[in-house]
């Protein structure tokens, strides 16, 4: 059904979903004849469905692997920061990337080793394949693996709630979804903010992507052009999706 009617199906990443919805809401106001359905499912579903042609635009919250890229055109909406979050009662506040790596790989197991009280560290990670985890692993863990006994949560909010409830927990969440009921840790002295993400000094970040099979055409192209244009960029900025400076 792609292209033939004035309906655009946007399918994929649940992290991108709210932004995509906001975009389609505004776009439809000025283009009443176009219908845009935003459907979640996850980045994998987005990549798969756009490759199979069942959706017009696939969305992803992580960069694609080489074999996934085949035949797809990527449009980067912007960067989302990954914030390492701890409980507001926790005294720790600044960690280096190496410390983070040691914490998540299980070499550091007690908060007192890194400036907190004497309590063991409860690790909260994300599920295999999540865009957030993908970025965190690439940027922090390097060749090390996250300790296999770490608690796995399947969504940004669930990680936030887990950290909010447990004074000894540590996890990582999307910058766009950050709020002050948990505490953001400085990484290597840099605290996450729109500026530090934009200029790349805050290193933990991942892209939000729109994917199209082949070249974008017709209504789909019009929509993507609009998204990448000034009006779209303004909305993306409101949603804390940050355009990289370089």
């Amino acid at each position, binding site marked *: 059904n792609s292209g033939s009617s004035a309906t655009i199906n946007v399918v994929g990443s649940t992290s991108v*979903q709210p932004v995509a919805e*906001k975009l389609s809401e505004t776009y439809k106001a000025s283009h009443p004849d176009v219908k845009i359905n*935003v459907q*979640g499912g996850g980045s994998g579903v987005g990549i798969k469905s756009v490759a199979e042609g069942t959706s017009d635009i696939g969305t992803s919250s992580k960069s694609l692997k080489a074999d996934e890229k085949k035949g797809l055109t990527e449009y980067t909406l912007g960067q989302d920061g990954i914030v390492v979050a701890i409980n507001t009662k926790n005294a720790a506040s600044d960690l280096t990337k190496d410390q983070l790596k040691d914490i998540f790989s299980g070499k550091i197991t007690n908060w007192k080793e890194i400036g907190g009280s004497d309590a063991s560290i409860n690790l909260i990670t994300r599920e295999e394949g999540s865009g957030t985890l993908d970025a965190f692993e690439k940027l922090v863990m390097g060749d090390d693996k996250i300790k296999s006994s770490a608690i796995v949560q399947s969504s*940004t909010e669930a990680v936030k709630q887990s950290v909010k409830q447990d004074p000894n927990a540590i996890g990582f969440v999307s910058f766009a979804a950050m709020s002050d009921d948990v505490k953001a840790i400085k990484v290597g002295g840099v605290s996450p903010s729109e500026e530090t993400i934009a200029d790349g000094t805050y290193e933990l970040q991942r892209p939000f992507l729109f994917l199209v099979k082949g070249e974008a055409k017709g209504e789909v192209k019009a929509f993507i052009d609009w998204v990448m244009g000034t009006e779209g960029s303004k909305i993306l900025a409101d949603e804390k999706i940050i355009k990289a400076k370089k």
Partner: protein
Amino acid sequence: MNINKIIPPKIAQKIMNGLFIASGLLTILILILVLGYVLVKGLPVVNLEFLLADPIDSGRAGGIFPMIISSIYVTAIAGIIATPLGIGAAIYIVEYANANRAVRLIRFGAEILASIPSIVYGLFGLAFFVVFLQFNWSVLSGGLILAIMALPTIFQVSEVTLSSIPSSYREGSYGLGASKWQTIYRVVVPAAIPGIVTGIILGMTRAISEAAAVMFSVGSALQTPISIFDPGRPLPLHLYTLATEGISLDNAYGTAAVLVIIVLVITIGTNLIVDRYQRKMTGG
């Protein structure tokens, strides 16, 4: 029976009564805790605007009207399809089938259907209804998935109830020259109504509260579905997105509260009707 000698019947009765009442109270406590949790957290955001407005900003503001309509759509489709299929199959098994192996196979099939995880239904729905049958992301696809999910509950509960109907009712009817089908729909099914309704309620409450199974098939669209081929976003799915992506926990609870109230109204209403019906039939 030996237990009688160790614990006299009267004491046993007292102990068991204690246990019954304790478990009744425990269940009530759980009820109050869970329902109370949802209502206390959710009711503050529920007002007329919340019920009747479209969501704004992915649901951070505005209301949940399209979700209510979507929920009605998918649940109705599920009910319209699963109820006759479930009851029909139960009738066939209890009243017609006598080949024992086929019966056991069908029963076993229903039990398996009842145990399949909703997420697998979700994936199956995507592959089968959305892609293969070309129903696209629509309330129809979602409703069909929910129908398959609700089917085994309706079937199994109806089957048990139908087989507990005394055969003297059937004999009375056959004795008057009623055909098999007349006997079934005039005597046997009416006598089994209370149980069948329990099955339908349980099947439908499962359908109306399901998110994972429709996640990949209903479309998640924020606008109100008009035809069954339009995409929609049933309440549980909206709630799921609001809650897990950290969009608005308050509105998530509000959505949950609305859903709970809808279900509560439906179950209480149906139970009252069934109760009155049953008393009229049996003269209790």
